[in-house]
């Protein structure tokens, strides 16, 4: 083997496609040929570099997301939350006004909510009077950054 190894032989050597006897011939050649030895090193380096993709350990966050405990806990939270929401959306039973049996529970279909009070009523009033000055706001000139966007200097 006086010439240099071709790239296909290098590939077959590194990927275990040569017979052990052929392997020994390659090794005998690279024992004397620095150029081919370097080619094999490069090929190996690239191959293992690409290969780290599969063997790289996943991040801790991914591990947590994938863990059974996390999934069980998440399911429990969802189930509890949904149950709680359902329970709260159910109206309080109203007694029959003027009936003989005031303890009878009415079906939800007959439920009429009390007078509706919009939560923005106060805000609407303020909007109607744009010149109103709120004297209670003593820190209106001071800028306080939102903690979400605030990044402390390192």
């Amino acid at each position: 083997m006086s010439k240099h190894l071709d790239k296909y032989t290098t590939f077959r050597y590194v990927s275990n496609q040569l017979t052990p006897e052929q392997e020994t011939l390659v090794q005998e050649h690279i024992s004397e040929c620095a150029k081919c030895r370097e080619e094999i090193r490069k090929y190996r380096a690239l191959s293992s570099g690409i290969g780290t993709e599969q063997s790289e350990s996943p991040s801790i966050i991914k591990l947590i997301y994938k863990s059974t405990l996390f999934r069980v806990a998440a399911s429990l939270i969802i189930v509890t939350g949904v149950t709680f929401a359902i329970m709260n959306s159910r109206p309080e039973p109203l007694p029959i006004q003027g009936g003989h049996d005031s303890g009878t529970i009415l079906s939800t279909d007959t439920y009429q909510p009390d007078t509706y009070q919009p939560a923005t009523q106060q805000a609407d009033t303020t909007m109607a009077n744009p010149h109103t000055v709120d004297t209670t706001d003593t820190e209106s000139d001071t800028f306080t950054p939102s903690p979400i966007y605030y990044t402390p200097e390192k």
Partner: protein
Amino acid sequence: MSEKIYDDILEWLTKEDERFSWRKLGLFSDIAHEAADLAARSLREKGEEYSSWKQRTLNTFYTGKEFKKFYKEHKEDKLMRRGVKSILMARLEHLFHHSEQTDTDKYIAPERDTISYSLSDENFRLITDEYLQNGISGTTEITAQCSLAIGNIFPLSDSYVVEHLERNDNFYWEKVYTRLRPMTDGFSYQISGTNAQDNTYDIWCDTCLTLNNAVLNKKLQQPTTSKDIISYAVGIIKNKNRELLKGIRKGGSISLDSVAYKVEFTQEENFFNTEDASPKKFSSQNKNITNYIDFRDEEAVRHHMVLALYNENHPLHQELVQGYEETVKMLFEHYIDGISYDDIIIKRMGSLPEKEMIKNVARIRQEVKRVKEKLTKRFIKIIKARKDE
């Protein structure tokens, strides 16, 4: 201890580890340390052949590691079996290329491929159970046992292959179907003048199903040979094409003169692994290098991808790296030349303030990581597309 001896032994152990994954299996942990230790004990004697020196040194190494016990404990391990399989495959391939073509291969194996020297899971299990049980003292003995097993089992006889086809063994049927694909293209073009992929694909599918049914139900003459199988298949292809030709006549969409001209020089023998039947002539098999990649083996796919990536003259190189040239260059610099990401940034953008440097290093680290994933996905897509063509 000379540096050269150390380098040689380091290479041997690296190769052994590459094939059998010794470090992962726990035979040793530090190759450099093992190589240094072995180099101090195993000098090459005057006039000793390189191969003899290697064998003697490795035998010393495996004896020192109590390999018999280790092998007994790990012989069923997936990594160990992969190493053994790679030796068997390499040896069978070598044998295939250096032996006279068998009748089985001549008639029913795909072009440039073999059935007679192919290793099915069944035969692999047979070899490991009968030839590679306990008492293995090192890789030299594994190699010797593999050679012995191959000598006894291969080439597979024609009757063995036909018997497995009759049992509907998909390992062998897949090869027969692959063989039929270019034949279908060839005959279809010769007989009916069609080279429309849709037509020939339909004919090929019909042929495969009909042939499989005939062999399984033993409709062919008994005892059946591989020549009988391929002759039957050719008969089916011809009939299908005659039907197609009748349809063309009625439709009158193709000039019958040109079809008749093509029929004149049809020679069945031309389609038995001769230059006329070369896959190069049929688009379906045009880039058939991909037919030999074992998609189940993640490492095999990776090795083929690295070959295409690293070798600029590889037919798939351009297609693989297109759009990622710059990142691939950085990937080469980092993994092959061992340049750190910091130095890669300095090389491209010069010296930067610390914050900028950190930001850019993180960016290219992420880019290289992403490009590895993208290249792998793209490579699989490319070779699968070619395989399915």
